[in-house]
């Protein structure tokens, strides 16, 4: 069923290894968002964990949507999408591969963001940061699932690159609430078990939208 999955992922990763464009774009954008957050809210204070969690998710959501737009625009310009559609690979498999690549890029950017976050907000390297990782990974899976499904808008509509966040952010709000609440709790030192409700919600969100993306991707990827 997943024949062709490996080659597509390898191709995208190799492309990224040679150009590094997505990494640079994602990291610089998310760093800027973090800087703005620190300047606006101040690095210290009693609500440090909440502001840090908010900054993390804000950076992620905008870097993520823009990153996926960029990746897809390049694919269209080089005609790669058409070649993929001509190849005997199922649309669902293309979706799975693109989702995995988007997830890898977001995780990479997220690792960078986390590092900067620790420095800017003067957080401790430790258990709190480790507990953040599952929350974070579940969150970016949901975001990547939505972005990968909806990113094709950027090539089809005037101002599509602007439109993608407008479409993705309202859809992502449940995961955003769950992710930021869980992150804030974990960063302020609570154990992972105390945020299990939010984690369940994130899991449900991910399952729902990965499945929806897998089934619906063929309709958005087809060209007339």
């Amino acid at each position, binding site marked *: 069923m997943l024949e062709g999955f490996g080659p597509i992922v390898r191709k995208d990763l190799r492309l990224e290894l040679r150009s590094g464009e997505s990494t640079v774009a994602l990291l610089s954008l998310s760093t800027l968002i973090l800087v703005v957050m620190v300047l606006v809210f101040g690095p210290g204070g009693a609500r440090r964990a909440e502001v840090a969690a908010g900054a993390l998710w804000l950076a992620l959501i905008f870097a993520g949507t823009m990153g996926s737009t960029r990746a897809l625009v390049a694919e269209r310009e080089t005609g790669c999408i058409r070649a993929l559609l001509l190849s005997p690979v199922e649309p669902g498999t293309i979706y799975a591969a693109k989702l995995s690549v988007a997830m890898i890029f977001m995780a990479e950017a997220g690792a960078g963001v986390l590092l900067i976050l620790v420095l800017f907000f003067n957080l401790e390297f430790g258990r709190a940061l480790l507990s953040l990782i599952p929350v974070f990974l579940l969150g970016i899976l949901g975001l990547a699932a939505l972005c990968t*499904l909806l990113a094709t808008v950027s090539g089809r509509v005037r101002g*599509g690159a602007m*439109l993608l966040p*407008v479409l993705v952010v309202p859809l992502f709000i449940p995961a955003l609430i769950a992710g930021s609440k869980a992150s804030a709790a974990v960063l302020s030192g609570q154990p992972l078990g105390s945020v299990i409700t939010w984690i369940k919600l994130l899991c449900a*969100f991910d399952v*729902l939208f990965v499945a929806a993306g897998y089934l*619906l991707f063929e309709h958005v990827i087809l060209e007339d």
Partner: protein
Amino acid sequence: MKGAVSIALAAASCLSMIAALFMVFVYAPTEAEQGIVQRIFYFHLPCAWVAFLSFGIVAVAGALYLWLGHRIWDDLSYAAAELGMLFCTLVLVTGSIWAKPIWGTWWTWDSRLTTTFILWLLYGGYLLLRAFGEDNQEIARYAAVLGIIGVLDVPVIIISVRLWRTIHPAVLLTRQGEHGLQDPRMVAALLVSLGAFTLVFVWLLWLRLSTLRLRARIGGLRKELALLEVAGAGARR
């Protein structure tokens, strides 16, 4: 035939709306605690019902479009999304007008308000896509997918927002007394109003759908005309 349906729907909508106005302002008694302001509820709830109904239609028509591929389903989901946005806006506006005297604030991040507002944003995005995109199959399919995942998102939004609010301290002094319709006359007024709004919705949907169908036909005729012109120019040469 189409004209007759339209006239019948218009007449039914007007008559039922007059009946609903009578029921709301004359027949139903004034609520003891909230006074005259409570009467806006007879418009608020039907608007919410119609808004949710249209978002459902957006998704179902979108799925039918992806499945069957006939343009009429795409037009139906577009028309329903526009009306859903209109009624969702009315829900937020009537809710605010009610909330100011009763809660003392125009807006509060109560779970139901937040959910409605998120839906408003979601379908606002859908309409932006329709407005920016051209009238072609790619956009139609994309919009159908968006409509489907939008409706899939609704239960998750409701759950997450509810959890979010229960964790925060309650801002409100009183809970919304929506279920306090003790008087059977109030229930009757609400039901008539619900029926009237549903009829108005069906009528507007019909009108909008007819316009979109006409637009599609004109588009088709233009294309034909352009082809004929090209053929004519070729023949003259």
